[in-house]
C-alpha cells in the first residue's frame, strides 16, 4: 500500500490545535486518557478526509464535532466511565474543594447533559449552536440543560453554590 503523505496544512493544524482539542475532550469526558483517545481518533479521521474538511471551512469545528459524536456514541467511553468515591486529583493542594466537587458531579451526569453544559460553559455556545452541534432541537437543549443544572444543584452542598442561578 502506498504511504500516506500528510498535507502540510493538516500537519500545521495538528501541531497548533491538538492541545486545545485535548482540553476540550478532557472537560467533555472528564478522563484524560479517554480524552487522548478521542482526539487521536478524531484527528485520524480528519486526516483521511482533510480535503473535504477544508471545503467546510471550519476544520476545528469538524474535529470538535467528531470528538463530541465519538464521546456520545462510543461504547469504549461507556466502559471507561466509572465513578469512584474520590477522584485522584482531589488531594492536590492547589485545587479548590468546590471545583473538585463540581468536577466530580459533572462526571456523574449522563453524557448528553454533560455535553450540553460543556458546550454552553466551556465553548460559550448559544442554545442554537448547541442544538446544531448535537443535532437536536433548541427545546431539547434547554430541557437537557435544565435537567443537568437541577441535578447538579441537588448534589452540590448549599455552601458550594448560591441559589440564584438561571
Amino acid at each position, binding site marked *: 500500500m502506498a504511504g*500516506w503523505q500528510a498535507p502540510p496544512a493538516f500537519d500545521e493544524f495538528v501541531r497548533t490545535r491538538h492541545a486545545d482539542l485535548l482540553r476540550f475532550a478532557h472537560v467533555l469526558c472528564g478522563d484524560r486518557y479517554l480524552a487522548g483517545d478521542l482526539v487521536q481518533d478524531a484527528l485520524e479521521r480528519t486526516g*483521511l478526509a482533510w480535503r473535504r474538511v477544508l471545503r467546510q471551512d471550519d476544520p476545528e469545528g469538524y474535529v470538535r*464535532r467528531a470528538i463530541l459524536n*465519538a464521546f456520545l456514541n462510543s461504547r469504549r467511553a461507556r466502559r471507561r466511565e466509572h465513578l469512584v468515591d474520590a477522584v485522584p486529583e482531589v488531594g492536590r493542594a492547589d485545587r479548590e474543594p468546590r*471545583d473538585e466537587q463540581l468536577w466530580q458531579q459533572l462526571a456523574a451526569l449522563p453524557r448528553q447533559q454533560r455535553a450540553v453544559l460543556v458546550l454552553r460553559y466551556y465553548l460559550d455556545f448559544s442554545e442554537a449552536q448547541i442544538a446544531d452541534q448535537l443535532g437536536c*432541537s433548541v427545546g431539547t437543549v434547554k430541557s437537557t440543560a435544565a435537567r443537568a443544572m437541577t441535578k447538579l444543584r441537588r448534589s452540590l452542598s448549599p455552601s458550594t453554590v448560591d441559589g440564584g*442561578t438561571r
Partner: protein
Amino acid sequence: MTLDELLRETLTDERRALPGWPDATDRVHAGVIRRRRRRVRLAGAGAAAAVALLVGVPALLVHAPSSALPPTRPARPAPSGPVVPFVHQPGVVPSPADALPRPIGQPCTAADLPPTATVVNTDPRRWVIALHIVGDRTCTLSGYPDLSVQDTAGRPVTMQYPNPLLAPPGYSPATADPGQVIEVQLDNLGSCDTGFSRQTPPLGLTFTLLAGDARIAVTGPFWPAACRPIVLSQWFRPWPGRGSETILADAGLTASIAAPDTIRAGEQLDYVVTLTNPGDRPVALQPCPVFRQEFDEVQELLALNCGQAPGAIPAHGSVRFAMVIPGQTFLGKTGPLDLRWQIEEAGGPSAGATAQVTVTR
C-alpha cells in the same frame, strides 16, 4: 457564587488543560496509515467475498432445485430522472411568528424582486402569485400592484382592477426578509370591460406585474378561460397556515428513501429521498423546506437544495434529492441502524420516511 459562574470557572480552569503531545503529527500520521491499511484489507476481503459469490452462487443456482432458492429482497424501483445534488446547508424550522405584521420598511425595488413570479395554485377562480425577495435586505410592498396584460399582438388589454372588496389572506403592507415571500391574489370575480371574449386562448396573454421600478413576468398554469376579468388584491404576506408558503403543509406530500442496505462504519452514507406530490396542483418549494435527517441518535436539521431544484413539485409528480450523512456521525455504531428523514414545518413534521441501514466494521 452562582452555579453558572461555578460551572464556567470549573470548566475553563487552566488546570484542566492537558499537556500537548510532543510527537503530535507523528502519532496522527501513524494512526491514519493504520486506518488506511485496515481499509485496504477490508476492501480486499470484500472483493474476495464478491468473487466467491459471483462464482459460487450461479453454480449453486444451476444445480439447486428452484424450490430451494433463497428468498430474495424485492428489487428497488429503478431510479429515474435527475437527482438534485446534496448541499449541506443548516436549516431553521420556520416559525409561525415569521408571518406576523411587521413595520413598513424600505420600498422594494427591482434589485429586491425576481424578474419572474409563479402562479402557485391553479384554482380556476383564483391565482395566488408568489414573489420571493431575492435582494439582501428587508423590504416592503404596499398597496396594489399594477398589472399589465397584453394580447398576442402586443396590444394592452384593459382589466378591471383593483377591487377593494378582495381581502387578501395575509398582512398588508407586506414586509419580507430575503428569501421570504410576498404574494398577490388575482380573482375572476368582476365584470369584463374589454373586447376579448371567453374564447380567447389563455396562452395568448402576457401578464406582467409592476412594482415600483420592477417588471415581473408572471408564469404558470393560467386559467382555461382567460377572458374573465381580473381583480387584484393588495400585496400581502400570507397568514400562518395560508398562502403559498404553507401550501407544503396542506399538500400531503409523501417521501420515500432509497438507501444502501449496508455500509461500513465511518463511511459516508449516500441516499436519495423522493418527494412525491399526490395532488392535482403543483407544490411550491418556497420557502425552501427544512428537513431533519436522523441516523441512529444523531440528527441534523438542514434545508433542501432548492437552489438547484425545480421551483415546484408538479401535480402527481416527484422530485428526487440526494442526501448525505457523513461517516463521522455514526462512529462506533454497528448493526442495523434506523435512517429517518422528515420535513419540518412550523406546524410540526410532515412528509417523512424511514429505512434501515446495517453498519458493519
